[in-house]
């Protein structure tokens, strides 16, 4: 964090910072996520680069004030390109003792801690399992603490508004937001506009109340003597264009809608709700006017099989779930492998095994996607690297699924799903249009005759005269596609299905290596840790370690040059939020002594821990 002291405005110091990380924490009922999202939107519009990390409890609403009920939202914003929501918060805003205790260990010494002193009563402390008051017992001695009676100040500011006490209290998050807006010099307008949109029609009194709260926060920060500095984080240098914030699940849904438009197919999304994938269903269900059909099935098996049925009938069949749902779908995905129909399976991964940590992130379903079905069952596997990449991966998945007539996995995860980043909105005209060809003519039609280049079989949908034919899960004869139990045919077909998936490599760009050409250490990853890995490599380089970096968006097939790339370096490090899954694939495929950097804590890598591990590894070399 670079700090420049400038001349004081209004008697205060004004500092310019490159990068700030703020964490809001409070009860699930405190509106933490909304507060964080408002700060995010404003900051994005202001022009900073940013990344966010919301962290909810597994319960809908655990008992107020308990540790189990703490909800968090972290944002890092900067005047330069950043890749993660930040390792440790520079500022912690804690709405109650539970939030304070659950988060304080992450704040570095001298970090800023803003607390709502009104929620540190005896009952509050007991609920948080505090035996003494952390505001008084020295717990916070290492920090820069600001004690603000947020509730009282909010209530006072809202005196004129004719709403209930409870409703007034609920506005306290915007008071706190106001304080932070003042501290970090953010404009109020985007939030004021949002109040209008959100409550304007339903209840104008709430517009007034929230507006007053926000402004009171700003005014309080301005007036009080507590805060001696204001901070500027100047806008980042963005490429010109139109931008918006986007979360991974939203981007995934938009990508699916776009894919349908780009190839002219109606989208069919069969799903059964499951955290953290449900928002994809919610988002898609709003776009009926795009011809999107969402089908909330009775279970995961019905969800995927309905998608296969839709795909058979000529729609873009998509199903979405999380790890436990993929387990349930595996038998049916194998049907899609056998009948060679396009199918997109979105797996928004979460902590496991079993029900595990439903609201936490993890990337431990790679081997399940690759191998979690009976017998030899090759599928294509893709993984987005950032929230907005979910959009592009969705389109890519649709393109591959329809071109090669095969199932394609998208391995997103909880971190991407709910994390946000500014996204330069693509022009529709710039998106890759792709053509889907249905078979329509009966001459020389054989259901399993293949395209020479892609090895895809024809897509002949019911309703087409003259193409009546039968498909199914039993082994098929080559070309004719009839049920066939011959030994040689089976062997041939197994290898053919594998070869077809391998052919996709034609469409996979070579793996790019970033960073130091002459490094001894390669860091290679996949999926959501992209940001952390990127930032960690940059940090390692800043600290004098040479390091090369590559990131896989295509996990099966791997880019053609992957073997060459990994063979080029003395050390290959594979950071993953699992116990070594890509690692296993790379070692077995390329026989390189790659090593894993593994963590399964339900949360993303810290940049610092990765950077340290990389530098350590580089040191071990010499």
């Amino acid at each position, binding site marked *: 964090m670079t700090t420049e002291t400038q001349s004081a405005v209004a008697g205060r110091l004004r500092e310019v910072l490159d990068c700030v990380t703020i964490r809001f924490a409070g009860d699930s009922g405190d509106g933490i996520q909304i507060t964080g999202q408002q700060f995010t939107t404003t900051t994005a519009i202001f022009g900073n680069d940013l990344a966010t990390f919301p962290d909810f409890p597994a319960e809908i609403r655990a008992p107020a004030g308990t540790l189990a009920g703490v909800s968090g939202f972290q944002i890092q914003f900067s005047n330069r390109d950043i890749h993660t929501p930040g390792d440790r918060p520079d500022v912690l805003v804690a709405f109650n003792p539970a939030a304070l205790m659950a988060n304080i260990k992450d704040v570095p010494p001298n970090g800023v801690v803003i607390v709502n002193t009104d929620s540190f009563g005896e009952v509050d402390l007991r609920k948080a399992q505090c035996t003494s008051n952390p505001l008084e017992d020295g717990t916070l001695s290492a920090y820069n603490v600001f004690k603000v009676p947020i509730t009282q100040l909010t209530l006072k500011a809202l005196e004129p508004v004719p709403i209930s006490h409870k409703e007034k209290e609920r506005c306290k998050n915007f008071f706190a937001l106001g304080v932070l807006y003042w501290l970090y010099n953010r404009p109020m307008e985007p939030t004021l506009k949002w109040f209008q949109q959100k409550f304007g029609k339903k209840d104008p009194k709430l517009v007034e109340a929230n507006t007053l709260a926000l402004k009171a926060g700003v005014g309080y920060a301005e007036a009080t003597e507590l805060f001696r500095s204001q901070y500027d984080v100047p806008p980042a240098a963005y490429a010109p264009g139109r931008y918006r914030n986007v979360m991974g699940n939203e981007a995934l849904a938009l990508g699916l809608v776009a894919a349908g438009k780009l190839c002219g197919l109606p989208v069919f999304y069969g799903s059964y709700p499951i955290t953290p994938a449900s928002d994809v269903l919610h988002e898609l269900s709003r776009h009926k006017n*795009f*011809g999107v059909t969402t089908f909330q099935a009775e279970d995961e098996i019905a969800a995927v099989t309905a998608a296969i049925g839709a795909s058979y009938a000529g729609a873009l069949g998509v199903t979405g779930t999380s790890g436990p749902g993929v387990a349930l779908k595996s038998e049916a995905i194998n049907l899609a492998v056998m009948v060679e129909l396009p199918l997109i399976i979105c797996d928004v991964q979460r902590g496991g095994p079993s029900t595990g940590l439903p609201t936490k992130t993890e990337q431990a379903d790679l081997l399940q996607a690759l191998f979690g079905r009976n017998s030899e069952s090759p599928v294509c596997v893709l993984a987005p690297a950032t929230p907005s990449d979910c959009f592009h991966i969705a389109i890519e998945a649709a393109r591959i699924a329809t071109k090669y007539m095969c199932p394609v996995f998208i391995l997103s995860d909880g971190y991407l799903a709910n994390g946000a980043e500014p996204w330069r909105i693509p022009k529709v005209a710039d998106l890759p249009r792709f053509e889907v060809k249905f078979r329509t003519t009966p001459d020389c039609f054989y259901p399993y005759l293949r395209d020479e280049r892609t090895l895809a079989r024809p897509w002949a949908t019911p309703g087409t005269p003259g193409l009546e034919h039968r498909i199914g899960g039993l082994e098929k004869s080559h070309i004719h596609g009839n049920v066939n139990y011959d030994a040689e045919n089976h062997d041939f077909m197994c290898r053919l299905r594998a070869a077809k998936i391998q052919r996709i490599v034609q469409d996979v760009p070579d793996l790019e290596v970033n960073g130091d050409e002459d490094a001894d250490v390669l860091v290679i990853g996949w999926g959501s840790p992209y940001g952390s890995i990127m930032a960690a490599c940059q940090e390692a380089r800043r600290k004098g370690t040479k390091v090369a970096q590559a990131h896989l968006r295509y996990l099966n097939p791997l880019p053609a040059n992957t073997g060459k790339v990994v063979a080029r370096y003395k050390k290959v490090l594979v950071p993953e939020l699992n116990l070594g899954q890509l690692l296993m694939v790379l070692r077995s495929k390329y026989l390189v002594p790659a090593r894993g950097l593994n963590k399964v804590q339900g949360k993303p890598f810290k940049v610092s821990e990765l950077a340290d591990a990389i530098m350590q590894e580089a040191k071990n070399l010499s």
Partner: protein
Amino acid sequence: MSPTTPTPPAAPALPAYTKKDFQSDQEIRWCPGCGDYAILNAVQQVMPTLGIPREKFVFVSGIGCSSRFPYYMNAYGFHTIHGRALAVATGIKLAKPDLQVWVVTGDGDGLSIGGNHMIHALRRNVDLKILLFNNRIYGLTKGQYSPTSELGKINKSAPFGTLEQPINPISLALASEATFIGRSVDIYPRHLMELLRRVSAHKGAAFVEIFQNCNVFNDKAFAAMTEKDVRDERNIQLEHGKPLVFGKNRDRGIRLNGLKPQVVKLGENGVTEKDLLIHDEHDVALAYLLSRIGHPEFPLPIGVFRAEKLPTLEERNRQQMDQVRAKLGEGDLERLLNAGDAWDVK
């Protein structure tokens, strides 16, 4: 779905189909004597008469002897996985509502592993023609009991007799809100064909239980009710608006005593047709009562238990799409991507 659904235009004039047109070139692989042959035959005879182009027919099945059915139909066919035919068919129907989708399933496929999809497809009123071949056994896996096997039945997996109360498929379909419920028997070709024609005409989830003899693993399971010589006395044909009369001489009937059905003899004790229950395909309570009766205390009801016209899932889906389009306009991708709080960087 969107109007871009890629169905090619149907052929202008319907060819004059014969049964042959619906026979595929695949060798039939059921045991000689299996009841499945008769059902296949009935279906192949009915298809040409329905006035629907062949390419619009899709036969979807799960796994089981019965589920091999689609291979033998010259139409579109999808032999899916065990128990999931109804879910696949739901996807097909939602994607392309103009297809006529038939689902062929067995008592294991449709009521054991696939029981949940059955309930839900029925209550959603997906326009599917569901033929459940009930042979009260798992045929393909060689003779284990099924959810319709009788309590105490001895078989491969219950060498000392099953311990389970069987499911009543008609009661279950009714509780699942199926809008069409019928029953027929493999060896009643004319009855079966008539029923199939009604099924084809019905818009909505149509559930048909077909008693089917598995002569290898459960021979004569239905013989006591369906063999030629007893059939007239032991079956009762349900006819909408008509009294429940049966018997070779049509001299017996069913009447209600409170909520209990009773077999009565016409003419005896002054009983006339007027005392009998009148069949009503719209009365679910009656349908429930009829689903509970059968051999030996009662004649076995065959025919249509329920027929009700209600909007189908796919109709509702289209309708909602139209409404949303009317309200929000046809989806515009550029606008969608640019929705929300966007900002420009110059």
